[in-house]
């Protein structure tokens, strides 16, 4: 039908207009009074209908107090409009943190909701377009970080879509809502493959080296002695000066330090790119879990061997943004 074709376009244009055509918006996004819409909720319509019946009853039975009550409840409705509007107006939204997730997981977009008023703002509800609602409450003159859930489907940058923030507090008769689209993005790593080939760690000898992760050419420093360390590496001279029973191990750095290389070219050629990225993401996770030192070799990028949280992030980021 024509209406059905017309509908989505109209809706999109409405959202464009509601966001004043500034998506994504510069932060902080302040919900000024022009951006907050107010309409009766379903309960509010029921309330209005009840008031109509009460007014007719009061008129019919000439109940003067009936008029008073009906008008008082009418005034309460107006007060509800003002208070609901007030609960939402002049909130300011700034982008917060968003930690990277794997594709298929739920990303949590952090938005800092700032309440400059010296009154609390209870029962705010927010959702990112397509995500679930969350309920939050901002204490007086304070800010809190709302984590908007949204399922990440594809690797790469996931932009925060339009955010709806609404409230029905205090009476639930009125719904006040606003749209915002702060600039916020979440890095989505490729989904780790379920059935990945094992880590390309090579033969047993190399593996030992890999786990030690150290060469033996240049003296690089001292650390506490571990029982597994070779006695040849104990720094006897240093121990003598130390006046304690602890042994120290000499560390060396050298050319022949073996590192695990996760190489794009090693993967079977039959796999498509996305599948290869998935496998490599799995490898990165496994290598990190095994506390290995690994490097990453992609067609256009090489990440030198390393270890730790930031190294893992760098590798997964390279995979996530591969070809983008």
């Amino acid at each position: 039908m024509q209406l059905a074709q017309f509908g989505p376009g109209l809706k999109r244009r409405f959202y464009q207009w509601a966001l004043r055509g500034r998506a994504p918006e510069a932060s902080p996004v302040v919900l000024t009074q022009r951006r907050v819409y107010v309409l009766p909720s379903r309960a509010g319509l029921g309330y209005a209908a009840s008031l109509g019946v009460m007014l007719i009853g009061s008129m019919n039975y000439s109940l003067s107090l009936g008029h008073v009550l009906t008008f008082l409840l009418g005034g309460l409705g107006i007060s509800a409009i003002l208070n609901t509007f007030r609960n939402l107006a002049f909130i300011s939204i700034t982008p917060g943190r968003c930690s990277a997730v794997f594709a298929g997981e739920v990303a949590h977009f952090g938005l800092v909701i700032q309440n400059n008023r010296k009154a609390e703002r209870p029962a705010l509800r927010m959702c990112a377009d397509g995500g679930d609602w969350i309920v939050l409450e901002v204490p007086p003159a304070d800010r809190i970080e709302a984590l908007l859930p949204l399922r990440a489907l594809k690797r790469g940058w996931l932009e925060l879509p339009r955010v709806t923030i609404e409230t029905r507090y205090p009476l639930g008769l009125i719904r006040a809502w606003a749209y915002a689209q702060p600039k916020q993005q979440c890095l989505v790593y490729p989904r780790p493959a379920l059935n990945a080939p094992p880590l390309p760690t090579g033969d047993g000898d190399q593996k030992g080296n890999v786990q030690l992760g150290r060469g033996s050419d240049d003296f690089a420093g001292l650390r506490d002695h571990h029982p597994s360390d070779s006695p040849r590496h104990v720094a006897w001279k240093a121990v003598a000066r130390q006046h304690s029973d602890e042994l120290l191990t000499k560390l060396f750095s050298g050319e022949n330090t073996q590192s695990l290389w996760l190489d794009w070219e090693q993967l079977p050629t039959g796999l498509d790119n996305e599948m290869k990225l998935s496998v490599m993401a799995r490898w990165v996770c496994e290598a990190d879990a095994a506390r290995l030192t690994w490097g990453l070799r992609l067609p256009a990028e090489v990440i030198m061997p390393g270890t730790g949280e930031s190294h893992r992030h760098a590798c997964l980021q390279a995979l996530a943004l591969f070809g983008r």
Partner: protein
Amino acid sequence: MARASASLNQQQVFWLCAAATGGFAPLTPWLPWWLSALSTLALLSRAFLLWRKTPLPPAWFVNLIAVIGSIGVGFHYRTLLGKDAGVALLALFLALKLFETKTHRDAYAVVFLGYFLVLSQFFYSQSIPVAVISILTVVLLTATLVALNRAQAKPAASLRLAGVMVAQAIPFMLIFFVLFPRIAGPLWGLPQDSGRAISGLSDSMVPGSISKLALSDAIAFRVRFNSAPPAQDALYWRGPVLTDFDGRTWTIARPGVSTALPYQTLGRGIEYDVTLEPHQQYWLFALELPGKLPADAVIGSDYGMYAKKPLRERFRYQVTSYAQTKPVKEESSEVLRVALELPSGMNPRARALGEELGSKHKRDAIQIAADMLGRFRNEPFTYTLSPPPLGRHDVDDFLFATRRGFCEHFASSFVVVMRAAGIPARVVTGYQGGEINPIDGYLVVRQADAHAWAEIWLSGKGWVRLDPTAAIAPGRVEKNLAAALPAGEPIPMLLNADNALLRAVRFRLDAVVNGWNQWVLGYDANRQRDLLKALGMASPDWQSMGAALMVLCGLLMLALMAWTLRQWQRTDPVIRAWREFQRKLTRRGLVAQAWEGPRDYGLRAASACPAKAGEIAEIETLFETLRYRPVQSADALRKFRYLIRVFAP
């Protein structure tokens, strides 16, 4: 997109129980006792189950209770459709609804039902206490709505917010109340109520029926005179005229009615308006005798004033009365015949006395009456509230044996004697006197002021009032009942003149109640028109009222909006002055950044307007001192503000 918390938590269900109780409790005086008990039991058991976290009874059980309760209501009221039966069913369903309230939608239904129950109270009473209870109930119900919308709300906070919101609603209520166009009369026919207690005078009189009223200080009606009120002993408020006598009971004769007066008015009238409490009867009270009739009233052939419907609501009407009248024509022979009738075989001694007086004074009505009144005055008759019981011939017993009686005894025996003497006579009941409330100037007439007096027909003069009570106890008509009764008689506490404090309190209270009746309960289309005219609205039709309503509501909303959105930050005078300084510099293009420190801004400003560098530096140093140094001085603040005021970049 389902609501995040569609089901209710325990606290919210507690709130609903409280709301249902609040909606239902004020109705209990008017509900059948068994229904009140059933609903209370239901509410208590619901709260108990909630407290013990026990599962709810099955739905069929609740439905069964509902059906049984409905049948009971049907039996009690003989219908399920009337207003009272409807209210009873509403109360029952509210209590039972709590057993199947699981979602927010059900919860809203409970609260809205509660609002309806508040309204339904007003069918039974619209007094000030009921209004206060209703406001409290509305706050409770509103707090329930707040609690429904916030999962973990503190009860006190919810109640406070609800109170604030109701307070915000009051100005809107007042505007609507004054300006919302009122429609006179019902929109459709109202079902007739039955079984409402009749208070005050009735259409018959036996010995003791007036003295029974004398102990009630319930208000019969209130009067506001447009000029000075007449003398106390002229305040005869004419009510039912009793002509038919069966030897013991006086009853009203159904009079013919018309809108034309059966008499001519003479002299100047007294204008006043009467606010009559509902008494479920047709008659209206007026000073003898009404000249200009109120709208919707008719006058009977017995000179009584009647409404067209029984008075079920408080009724306000305007009358002009004339102390002097003369009949338009001779009274019909039928009326006179009835006014002479006496049942045979009753009160033989009184009849004998009448006949004796008639022959003694040669049927001269005035002399006969004077003779009879003289007997009351001279013989040992006593005016008392507690007369001894009388036998079958009660007039005889009173006149010749006990000689102790209240006004109805005197009036009744007087009329019997007059009739026996051949003079047409009848008993008039009504009220005599009243008390001016010094607070609001209204004359308050109570049931205790109920009175009975006599009328005799004088050819050419018409019906003439004669009050036998005035002969025996002049204080009754000159002052009030308490002044007329002998010491030691029980009198209504409130009529006791000794207790000055109590009287002062009563006057005040009564003035409040009267104001409430006049301006809140009595605010109808007429009163609205008068008030709006007094307020300067030239033609208060519904268009202009609607326009005024919209404008005022809009203004109020804007004001409230500004108030609710205010940031409540009482700005420090130092900051306020500094902002002024920044505003002045902003006009020169020096926009202050929110993150910019005062010294940086001062230096920037000084380099932008070198001519004013000295002043700027001085202001900036003062600001630093006032804002960031531990010691404050009023002098520095004064100087700072002065410098900024005179500063012109």
